[in-house]
């Protein structure tokens, strides 16, 4: 009974995808932030050594014997020693005149307030970090301004940055992996209530139209409440239909029975053969009508119940035995013997009312088409499948007709002269398929029909 559903995408995939994209974007961002931050710190540490170097140079400046002397300490340069052997350039000016150092190393604007100016430039084909500062010396007639500048290549910084980049990449990759695991976990946790709901609904019996009681996450409340609503409405409408059919059956049968009993009383009172014949035909027509109405209602009821089959364990043998017993009087009126036989107890899951209804229709047919003084055998079998077989000694089915007879209102050519609506086999076959079984019609070798209802 599963119907196909139009699928558009997958919630899980959509969620996982947005998590993956989010995590990737975050990871890349994190990588660049770590790197930027580490680069700043690395640059700061180079800057602070450069500052110490230029300060120690300026501190060494002094006026001696009327001119500027500068006994630059060894440490001014040796503190700049790096594992990558970075190159060092420097220049010293006195009031704009070159005192010492690399004359082609350009100076930035430096104020004499003791502030230190950093900048990154290219010098001698290499990127360098340059620090410049100045200091006023008094002691001569006019104060002199000494400006010193030290520049260092950035090889060591580059190596440090490469290391930082590699470490950042490792950290970030770890973060990415963890975040991925987390997303997988988050996705399945988020989807889990939906799967639990699906599971609990799929597991219910067909007749179980009770509302979903287990708590659900708030996002699913609208879905579940409309589902509950739908099931409530469905359940109510099914109840109403059943009530209506029962009510209808009652309403139809009672007036027909009344009409029939009137007809019978009248028949007793009428003597004239002509009138009696007319009355008998009338009674037969009434019976036919009553039967047809009954079958119509049965058919409707079965269609209704088949969609919500209430499966319970039933003892087929007992069920059939009881039924055969109740039909015995009718058979006796026709001088037909109903014979019941079984090889073992057979239990199946099914709806007893529907099964009874189906088999009654089969036996009705057998009674209709059997000659008097014959035997109808009802057999309950366990193997190969649980089944009920009805055998009679009537004319049997016409070979070319077997397939279409289960259609609604279909009657065979051999049926002329018998009362019928063409619904009997339809009901039996509907009941069979509601139980995932089948109805097969065949003829016995020695003649007579053999109808098998198997589950």
């Amino acid at each position, binding site marked *: 009974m599963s119907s196909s559903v139009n699928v558009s995408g997958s919630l899980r995939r959509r969620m996982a995808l947005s998590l993956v994209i989010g995590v990737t974007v975050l990871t890349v961002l994190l990588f660049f932030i770590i790197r930027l931050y580490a680069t700043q710190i690395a640059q700061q540490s180079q800057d602070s050594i450069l500052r110490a170097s230029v300060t120690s140079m300026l501190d060494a400046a002094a006026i001696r014997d009327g001119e*500027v*002397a*500068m*006994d*630059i*300490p*060894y*440490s*001014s*340069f*040796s503190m*700049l*020693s790096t594992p*990558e*052997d*970075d*190159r*060092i*350039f420097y220049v*010293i000016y006195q009031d704009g005149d070159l*005192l*010492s*150092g690399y004359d082609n190393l350009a100076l930035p604007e430096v104020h004499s307030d003791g502030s230190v100016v950093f900048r990154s430039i290219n010098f*001698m*084909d*290499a990127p360098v970090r340059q620090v410049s500062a100045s200091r006023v010396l008094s002691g001569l007639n006019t104060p002199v301004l000494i400006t010193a500048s030290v520049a260092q290549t950035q090889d060591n910084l580059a190596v440090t940055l490469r290391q930082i980049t590699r470490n950042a990449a490792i950290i970030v990759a770890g973060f990415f992996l963890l975040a991925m695991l987390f997303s997988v976990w988050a996705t399945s946790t988020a989807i889990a209530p939906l799967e639990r709901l699906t599971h609990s609904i799929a597991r219910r019996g067909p007749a179980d139209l009770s509302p979903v009681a287990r708590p659900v996450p708030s996002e699913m409340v609208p879905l579940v409440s409309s589902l509950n609503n739908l099931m409530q409405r469905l359940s109510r409408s099914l109840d109403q239909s059943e009530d209506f059919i029962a009510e209808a059956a009652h309403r139809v049968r009672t007036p027909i029975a009344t009409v029939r009993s009137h007809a019978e009383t009248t028949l007793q009172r009428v003597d004239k053969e002509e009138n009696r014949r007319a009355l008998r035909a009338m009674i037969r027509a009434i019976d036919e009508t009553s039967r047809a109405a009954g079958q119509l209602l049965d058919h409707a009821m079965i269609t209704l119940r088949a969609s919500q089959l209430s499966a319970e364990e039933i003892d087929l043998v007992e069920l059939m035995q009881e039924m055969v017993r109740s039909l015995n009087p009718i058979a006796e009126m026709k001088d037909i013997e109903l014979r019941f036989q079984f090889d073992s107890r057979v239990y199946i899951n099914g709806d007893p009312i529907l099964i009874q209804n189906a088999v009654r229709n089969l036996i009705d047919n057998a009674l209709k088409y059997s000659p008097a003084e014959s035997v109808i055998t009802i057999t309950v079998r366990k193997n190969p499948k649980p089944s009920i077989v009805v055998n009679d000694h009537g004319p049997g089915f016409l070979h070319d007709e077997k397939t279409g007879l289960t259609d609604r209102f279909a009657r065979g050519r051999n049926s002329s002269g018998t009362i019928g609506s063409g619904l009997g086999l339809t009901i039996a076959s509907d009941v069979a398929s509601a139980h995932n079984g089948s109805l097969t019609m065949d003829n016995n070798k020695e003649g007579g029909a053999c109808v098998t209802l198997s589950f």
Partner: protein
Amino acid sequence: MLATFVQAIDFEEERLFKGNAGTITIRVLSSTDISVFAPTITGFLNTNPELNVEYLVVGSADINTLIRQSPEQYDIVISSAMDLQLKLVNDGYALQVDTIIHPEWAQWRQSLYGFTLEPAGIVINKQHFSNIKAPTSRQEMIEVLRENPDTFKGKIATYDVRQSGLGYLFATQDARDSETYWRLMEIMGSLDAKLYCCSGEMIDDLSTGDMAIAYNVLTSYASARADVADEIQWILPSDFSNVMMRTVLVSKQTEHRKSAIAFVRYLTSLAVGNPTAKEFALPSLRNAATQGSVISLEPGLMIFLDRLKRRTFLNEWESAIIQ
């Protein structure tokens, strides 16, 4: 025009070493005497017969000037002035070679490779010390000189640091290490010390007895001179001694990059190995006579090349030794 310019340079020594099938000639500018370096060059040409080596000797200060003037003229530079060499590298005159494996402490920027360890020491003429106990430290030398002014007046030799790059290097390192240096210079000055340009001449004058004691001489030169071994004796001061490395670099503008690198690789592999005297006449990096402190290849060396710093130092030195 360049050729005539090159011709005009007055090299102290020059020689062309020919390989068996020599086609390419690499020019080596060096401050080391040909006699000391010849075995190494011969060994190199044996393994690289397709090369010739033109070996040109000048003083270390001249090397510095020549390279800065015409860096494209020379393929290899060898010098004992570590500070000048380091500054050449710093100023971008050296080729960075990634393929040479050398101890970290003996190289700078994979451009400058130290290949000898040579301590500076005291060298004496044995005759003058027949009655006097030879000094074993700077302090003892000061005492010996102070107690025997007549014996040593005019007989003390040392570098003229204004002329000699190596002398300047040793002097500045000495001055960094201890104040004793200045007291020694003062007493040497008061005894009319004679100033020399090179270790070789000091040893010559020591062996003849013209000089009695020399300070800050390369002991490797003294020990290499088998001819004067009976007259002189060298002493490493027990307080401290500076150990110099001869260094080699490949000129950045060399036209024979591969051959020049091959030469440096040959030289450095000798230096870290256990070369025989036939291959390598200088004390290698593994020689045992180096209990002193090796002058390290670091940017601090460049401080003493600063114009102001040098002026200050030389003023002080002159006022101590020239009285």
